[in-house]
């Protein structure tokens, strides 16, 4: 699935190199360390749900293949284990945990119905096709229990998976985000100006040099 993964414009940049600089304060170190050391074993999902959720995360969130993958499914599981809501719910959706339980079971049911296999057993292209149908609201099997599949996809799948992924330092490094910034903050605010503790953007010509320089950014 990651065959069309993109390469970062910020080779060599790792926001975690700033951990012991004035850009990180104690509470931020603690919070990020907890996230990095979280259990990769599910505490909320059962085995079937966990298998489906893992496959769905791999299908939806494309990650570079030259580093360890961000454990999106484990982050989702942690959120469901804590039952951490957003503060609202579209009236057409059931509560957080219930929505995920129904959605994953329905995805497996749709997959079984069409291909005789659960979602995780499908080839990548077929998984993608099924997810695209979910995005368009075309999945309507009884297993959805009346939950609109397009709404489940936009309000739960995308919201929860990407909310997890972009909360991870690896994703910050990938897009050249400065990351935590207390107490140092920033000084150079104008266009094309970067502080020495910010990532350098590479071009095709200078990628190797930039990579070397970025490893020293902190």
């Amino acid at each position: 699935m990651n065959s069309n993964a993109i390469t970062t414009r910020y080779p060599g940049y790792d926001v975690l190199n700033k951990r012991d600089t004035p850009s990180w304060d104690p509470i931020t170190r603690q919070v990020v360390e907890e996230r990095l050391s979280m259990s990769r074993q599910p505490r909320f999902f059962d085995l079937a749900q966990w298998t489906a959720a893992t496959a769905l995360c791999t299908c939806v969130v494309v990650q570079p293949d030259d580093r360890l993958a961000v454990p999106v499914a484990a982050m989702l599981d942690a959120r469901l284990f804590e039952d951490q809501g957003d503060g609202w719910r579209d009236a057409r959706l059931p509560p957080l945990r219930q929505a995920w339980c129904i959605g994953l079971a329905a995805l497996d049911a749709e997959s079984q119905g069409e291909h005789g296999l659960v979602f995780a057993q499908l080839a990548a292209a077929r998984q993608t096709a099924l997810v695209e149908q979910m995005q368009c609201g075309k999945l309507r099997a009884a297993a959805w229990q009346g939950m609109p599949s397009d709404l489940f996809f936009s309000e739960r799948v995308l919201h929860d998976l990407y909310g997890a992924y972009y909360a991870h330092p690896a994703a910050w490094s990938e897009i050249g985000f400065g990351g935590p910034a207390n107490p140092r903050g920033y000084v150079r605010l104008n266009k094309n100006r970067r502080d020495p503790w910010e990532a350098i953007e590479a071009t095709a010509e200078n990628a190797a040099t930039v990579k070397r320089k970025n490893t020293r950014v902190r």
Partner: protein
Amino acid sequence: MSGDAVQHPRARGGQAPDVFRKGGWVSMREYPCDEEVDFVIVGTGAGGATLACRLAEQGFKVVALDAGAWWRPLEEFASDEAHQQKLYWTDQRICDGDNPLKMGSNNSGKAVGGSTVHFAMVSLRFRPEWFKCRSLLGYGADWPIDWREMWRYYDEVEQALSIAGPITYPWGPPRKRYPYRSHELNAAALVLARGAEAMGTAWSATPLATVSAPHGKSPPCVYRGFCVAGCATNAKQSALVTWIPRALKAGAEIRDLAMAGRIETNDLGRAVGVEYFRDGAWRFQRARNVVVAGYAIETPRLLLLSANHRFPDGLANSSGLVGKNLMVQSNQAVWGVMDEEIRSYKGPPSLSISEHWNYQDKGKDFFGGYAYMSQGPLPVGWASTQNGRGLWGAKLSREMQKYNHQAGLKIVGETLPQERNRVTLADEKDQYGLPVARITYGFCDNDKKLIAHALHFMEQALEAAGGKEIWRQEDDTCHLNGTARMGDDPRTSVVNADCRSWDIPNLWICDGSVFPTIGGVNPSLTIQAIACRTADRIRALAQRGEL
């Protein structure tokens, strides 16, 4: 450390957290529950904290309750979007209607200091005509307050918060220069400036409630850019670091983790106090006056939850308008990719602004106005915006690679009051056993025309500024107002100009709920100005024996 703040009340035993010193405490006066205090205030955001401070400074006995935690910003505010969701009201609410709202991060706080702990600090005055927009502009409803009076209170709040802004502001009647110099503009703010100049319209540095030079115990802003996730340096002039320390000093008691569930009334139809949940038990605070300052969702919810034999439709609701006329502000944007590096994560998110279409009425096919501002989304928020256009997988990854080159223009747009947009009680219960709010919302045709106008104009402006691959974000909303409007007539409003209930003379409402119209500017400055005015009116009424 963080868990502690949401599990055990901190303000007790005669002390409260000192937000300016790590591990520090300040002394706090305490009142027994069975003492009838002068005012019990529900909510400590822009309305409640301001009023608590001003009333305590006038010598009234004040107890303020907040459902949220009393955070210590210097130790407990991480530079981390996900962790800082602890500042948002994440208790369940159910949203329906033609355009179901998204709550939480963009519009609801649950903390001592309310939403001001995570607001974007944009501090704008209403256009004067908006206070009489039915009479002068032909839409919405008139406010029962004169703009010149509000202008004096705006002055007061801008001084109290040391607002950093330009020497001359391009729109509206002449005003004094802002107390603090404006902040340096970041690259994203300069994109707005280029676009506005190309369109032949004015622009300005945004007046912001974060200090550009030291003030008291607040250091100047360091441009770390996590403003909407909470300020870890105390540069932001939130209620938590401004009105609340002042209120404590003046003798107010503020109770954290205190969720109000019901206002009691007596046989005479007067409010006698508030039942609230704190430290594992329901308690009751007696008071001569009750002020509701829970913002546009929790305020009507509490009034409706307090229905009793005498007031079967909820308190202060003889007009039937409690919960109705909920107004959001439209929050649509255009985004584009710039050749140059923008890195808009640096600095406050909205450093520049155009209020052109708040003050210019020609060329509009709709009522109302909008401001638009430069933007600085952080990664989680930015990914969510991209999800909103249906992107995921490799397409999303490719878009996210452009993060440091993107720039956006986003409106704070006026919507019209409509009675069908409302807050009611759902069957579902929250963790306190109280029915949750059901929020019903849909844009009207006028709202849609305003949005279309804004997107069209901003698209041209962004293109003129050099933006490429421009696209429209059409689905966002922000601030909430209405649901307990003020007015001159008890039949068509919930409170009078003094924020005093028509039905129950010792019940007051002091937050954005009282807005009859919402205007095209962020509401926090106006909420605080109204709270200051209400405090002065209460003093005047007390002196005349009319309280």
